[in-house]
């Protein structure tokens, strides 16, 4: 049985930031990630980040991942378990980990504290023939293109005009692939308008209040039918448009990957504004269980910039809760929370803020 002070599950922006922050205290950290390469979604993100300088504004996601990994390597007290999935959390506090491409390495780990930074999974959409080859999630398209240099198709219909749909459309255009259109069920573009404008300039139409009705094809997608929808999200007959595409890319939202938190018995709540079931937490990112912290998309779907800040807060507080010393802890903690608040002080974050309010644990004040 392996022992560690702090197990961090997930090596994306939240998990990496948590590890760096906690490691500076001297605590022994074990970081577990299921990919071959650390960095989570950052390693696929070729666009420059928003935010302020402190949050790596202007730097591309892939570069941010490199910066974080360099930082991680400086700490001898961070152990990495890569290509590994945490398969369970047991009553005696043990995490079971299955490692390797064949899953033939089994590890039992007993941590004093756990930070769950498992991120999110993509939502699926129901439409006729949604199991045809050529129907992809946006994450898969990004992985194929940006990690492995493989184009997913030649003519793409993007479903969803949130930031992911917009950004992946742009990446497809950069790869020389034609994006026929972007459809968005809501009456307005959900992602940053600067992303939308830059895609429009490259000639891609964005149809709001439209959705994908069906796709056709024999061995794969050959055409897609989109249609206008009304405010009740019902297709309006007679508004169908046929698009000749070989690829349909779905960017219709994310759901927190919270299975481990359920299993651990954390107090969970369905909060639509945060993308689904999330663990309730205090403002130090601690769940209803004293040994489990959360950070990043698993705590509520947001941006990588806020995930990194949540990770830092969780890492810092988990380490300090174990008695490790961090200089200027109180000030540091206060500043991180202030930064997070500033990042969310815009109209687009209103929904998230409502969700976060619902997810906040109200505790009895300890005397």
């Amino acid at each position, binding site marked *: 049985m392996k022992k560690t002070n702090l197990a961090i599950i997930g090596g994306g922006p939240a998990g990496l930031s948590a590890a760096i922050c906690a490691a500076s205290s001297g605590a022994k950290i074990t970081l577990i990630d299921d990919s071959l390469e650390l960095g989570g979604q950052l390693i696929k993100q070729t666009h420059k980040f928003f935010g302020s300088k402190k949050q790596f*504004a*202007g730097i*591309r996601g892939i570069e941010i991942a490199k910066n974080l990994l360099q930082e991680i390597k400086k700490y001898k007290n961070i152990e990495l378990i890569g290509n590994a999935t945490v398969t369970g959390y047991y009553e005696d506090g043990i995490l079971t980990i299955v490692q390797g491409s064949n899953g033939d390495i089994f590890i039992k780990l007993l941590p004093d504290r756990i930070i769950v930074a498992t991120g999110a999974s993509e939502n699926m959409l129901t439409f006729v023939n949604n199991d045809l080859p050529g129907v992809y999630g946006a994450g898969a398209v990004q992985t194929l293109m940006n990690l492995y240099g493989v184009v997913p198709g030649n003519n793409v219909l993007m479903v969803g005009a949130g930031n992911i749909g917009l950004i992946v459309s742009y990446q497809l255009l950069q790869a020389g692939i034609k994006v026929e259109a972007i459809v968005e069920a809501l009456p*307005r573009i959900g992602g940053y*308008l*600067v992303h939308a*404008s830059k895609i*429009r*300039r*490259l000639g891609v139409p964005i149809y709001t209040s439209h959705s994908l009705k069906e796709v056709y094809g024999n061995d794969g997608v050959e055409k897609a039918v989109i249609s206008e929808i009304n405010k009740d999200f019902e297709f309006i007959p007679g508004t169908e448009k046929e698009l000749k595409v070989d690829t349909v890319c779905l960017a219709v939202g994310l759901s927190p990957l919270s299975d481990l938190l359920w299993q651990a018995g954390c107090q969970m709540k369905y909060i639509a504004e945060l993308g689904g079931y999330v663990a309730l937490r205090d403002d130090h990112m601690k769940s209803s269980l004293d040994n489990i912290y959360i950070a990043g998309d698993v705590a509520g779907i947001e941006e990588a910039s806020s995930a990194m800040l949540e990770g830092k807060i969780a890492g810092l507080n988990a380490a300090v809760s174990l008695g490790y010393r961090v200089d200027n802890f109180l000030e540091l903690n206060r500043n991180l929370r202030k930064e997070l608040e500033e990042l969310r002080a815009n109209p687009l974050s209103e929904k998230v803020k409502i969700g976060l309010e619902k997810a906040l644990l109200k505790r009895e004040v300890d005397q």
Partner: protein
Amino acid sequence: MLEKTGLPTDDDLKKVIPDKERLAKGAVVIIECFQKIPCDPCAISCQFGAIKPFKDINDLPQVDFNKCTGCGICISACPGLAIFVIDNNYSENKALIKLPYEMLPLPEKGKEVYALDRAGKIVSKAKVVRVQKIKNKTNIISISVHKNMAMKVRSIKVEDKKNEG
């Protein structure tokens, strides 16, 4: 409209375009950023204080056009690729547009490219005056277009050699 289509309206644009006198004086920045999001690299990048420092990270950029030299350093700093520099003094009937470009192949200096409007429609031809390769990979392309196109053209299309004749 912008929220529905991704295209700024004339009213949106009025708020960010300098007045005629300033435009007539030469190169000046136009920041087509209309939505409050947490983002401030433009203000940080400006060496002349023309893009005023943000009080709140979510502020919209505020430009003092008289301080702007049209240097264009903010063009590649902007994560949203929303910044352009327009020089109406470029020649008697041509204006110069500096725009951000992250596509390949890069256009060649001296060559003609298609000039596209905000909806990606080809509206004229443009001549590539300068190609600046920038370290952060948001390159800056300077093109000359007819003056009446200066407020319309915001993108270019480079003819792919593979498809030529």
